């Protein structure tokens, strides 16, 4: 996440804008606190409702994220992780800020879906074109919409139970192999 946005964001989980290593170490220590049980609050900042459907399905029998110690909560007061979908409509800024500030620290923010990652909408008068500049994002989950499996992986990465994979991917297929 961008350090400036961290500074800009009041009450964000203690995250000094210092070197990358310390930030990374801090992230891991925070994530470790959430390993066993984590409560998720979702926030729709202008999605097309497909991301919401996939998130709802996380609790469905096929995926059942409760078995991994994740739970949904309607109250940001009880939430440790904010799952944000949509391109962050400007008209929604107040609600988004209030929701984030209502969460007790330490807290994680997961940007969910291509809109939230700046894919579908460019910044303009209607939207910020991605949530990065409004909220301090910890984990980014691509996909339009991200399938429940992708969401599961993202959540597990967020709490440091899975290693991030995309960093090592090249998206290059040389020659015909594989």
């Amino acid at each position, binding site marked *: 996440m961008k350090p400036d946005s961290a500074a800009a964001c009041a*009450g964000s989980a203690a995250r000094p804008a210092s070197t990358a290593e310390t930030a990374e170490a801090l992230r891991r220590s925070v994530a470790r606190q959430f390993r066993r049980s984590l409560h998720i609050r979702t926030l729709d900042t202008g999605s097309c409702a497909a991301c919401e459907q996939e998130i709802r399905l996380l609790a469905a029998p096929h995926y059942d994220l409760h078995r991994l110690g994740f739970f949904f909560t309607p*109250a940001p007061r009880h939430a440790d992780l904010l799952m944000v979908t949509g391109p962050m409509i400007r008209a929604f800024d*107040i*609600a988004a800020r*209030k929701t984030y500030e209502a969460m007790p*620290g330490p807290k994680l923010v997961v940007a969910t879906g291509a809109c939230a990652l700046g894919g579908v909408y460019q910044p303009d008068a209607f939207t910020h074109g991605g949530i990065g500049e409004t909220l301090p994002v910890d984990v980014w989950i691509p996909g339009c919409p991200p399938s429940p499996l992708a969401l599961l992986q993202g959540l597990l990465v967020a709490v440091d139970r899975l290693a991030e994979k995309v960093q090592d991917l090249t998206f290059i297929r040389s020659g015909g192999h594989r």
Partner: protein
Amino acid sequence: MTPLPLMYGAAAAWALAALAVLAGGASRPGIRAGCVMSGLGGAAALAGGVSSLLSGNSRVVTAGGSVVVGSLQLQATSLAGVFVALLGLVAVATAAFVPRYHEPGRATGLYLAVYNLALLASLAVLAAGGVVTFLVAWETMALLCYLLILRRPRRDDVAGGAFWFLALSETGFVLIVAAFVILAAKTHSMQLDVIAARAHLVPGAWRDTAYLLALTGFGFKAGLVPLHVWLPEAHPVAPADGSAFLSGLVVKLGVYGIALFAFRLLPAGPAWRGILTMAAGAATAAIGILYALNERDIKRFLAYSTIENIGIIVTAFGAAMTFWAYGQRLLWAFLLLAGLYHVANHGSYKTLLFLEAGVIEHATGTRDMDRLGGLAHRMPRASVITFAGTLGIAALPPLNGFVSEWLIFQGLFQGFRTGSHLVAILIVLAAATLGLTAGLAIYAFVRGYGIPFLGMPRTRRAAAASEAGQPVAGPALLAVACVALAVGAPVVLTALARAMRTVTGVALRPVLLPGNLTVIPAHTKFSGFSPTYLTVFLLAVLAVPGLIYLAGRPRADSLIVPVWDGGLVTFKPRMQYSAMTFSAPTRVTFDALYRPTVSVRRASDDPAGRSGPVHYESQATPVFERYLYRPVIRVFEWLADFIRPIQSGDVNLYLFYVFAAVLVAYLLGAL
């Protein structure tokens, strides 16, 4: 010092106060002086009441007198002692309240003079030792109260409210006169002592008739349903101290009248008399609180809650009479004691609440709960004092209302001692009704305190409210009295019990244990508790969370964020519960009683294009006014049409009427 002289002192002080405010009512010092006098009088009355409690009935003092009207007879009795003391308390508190509340002016001077004379008249009622004295004083008191209510005759509803009071009061007066005449005729005496002594000579039928007449007559003043309609009309239009006096004392005079007949003049009576009284009381209590729940005007709300409390007291009296009929003298005396204690308690906190209602009205310009809100932050003193009164009237420990209601319940729960199953069931039914009433009362006063004082201000006036320059001393004194009456209950009750012995002849003393500050209702093996220790215990319990907080305060820095509102842009005052919506469940549950008529209007109610604000009104049908009083009023209007012809307005004609009337009177005398 004997009580009567103290009362003379009080009377004199009030007379002087009346003169002082008449003379200097236009200036603040004048009003102050009058109030000081009035307060001194109150103190004297308080002392007189207490001393008459301690010293029992004094002998009758007779002064002047003539063949026609009889003589002025005064007597300090322990039954009246409680009321006299209450009168003193109310007078002192009001005296402390008035100077900051009223603007100087001739009208104010007149009003205060009338008020002081009303105090005087009430004292005379309580100190009356003879029938004539009693009746004259009573009528004077009623007329003076009428003038009190008429403080601002030009405002809407004032004349109407005052007229309701006068009309019902006069109707009651006729019945009271009848009751006294029956007793006087049957006992050949105009002196209350003698009447009480010879009451057993009166034939049963006449005794019951007299009692029923008295119950109804005084019921009008006390506000027994359905004779209560003047209270919600008169209280809102009178000034704060005026309505405080009405609720704090005047209605209590009605109770005194009932007690006078039930316990002093005609103690012996059949069970149905008591059961009837009890039923009337229970019905009054329940209906009173239910109507209170449907009121937004603070003063109307308080007026209805007065009706409820009167109901509780009368229920206690009725149960007591029932127990007498079944030979349970101990419970008889005990319930009388409990009832009188509730009189004192209600007098203190209801006066407090009415005075504070006046403070709120001055600070915000409205009595409508739904235009208030958030006053706790803007008027901290008023909110603390009101909270004490609210705890008291909601009968929550450790305040005094709880003690007296607990005593009354303990008395009722022993209905089984009557031996008669039917009566036992009836008494338990009454207890159940009071239980419902008590529950609703808590509901009503959570609302009555929460809506104006908590939450966000609903109007600009409420947001700008300030209690600077508002009276404090009077209500504060009453709050102290409430606490004292709760913590000191065992002592007070012991004193009361000793005093009542002169009325009941039953010694309750051994079953009240002042030694270890415990109250035991009548029978040792039934139950008992100590208000004092309860208070201490509750305070300790309340202290625990505070200690825990202090001990376990988080070391890490905590994050203070606003209340979670679902991400609204702004949380608006219109988004909080209002008084009427808070009590909506009762309106739905008891709609048979309210018969609400609902209307929803808005600029455009087209399903496709709804727009504009919603007007939602739900009006309860005024059942008694519409179905009981309106027909009566019609009849009277119809009769008035016949009488009109003899009203020509010609002076000579009226002189002739007078001459004729006197002639008839002499002829009757001659026969």
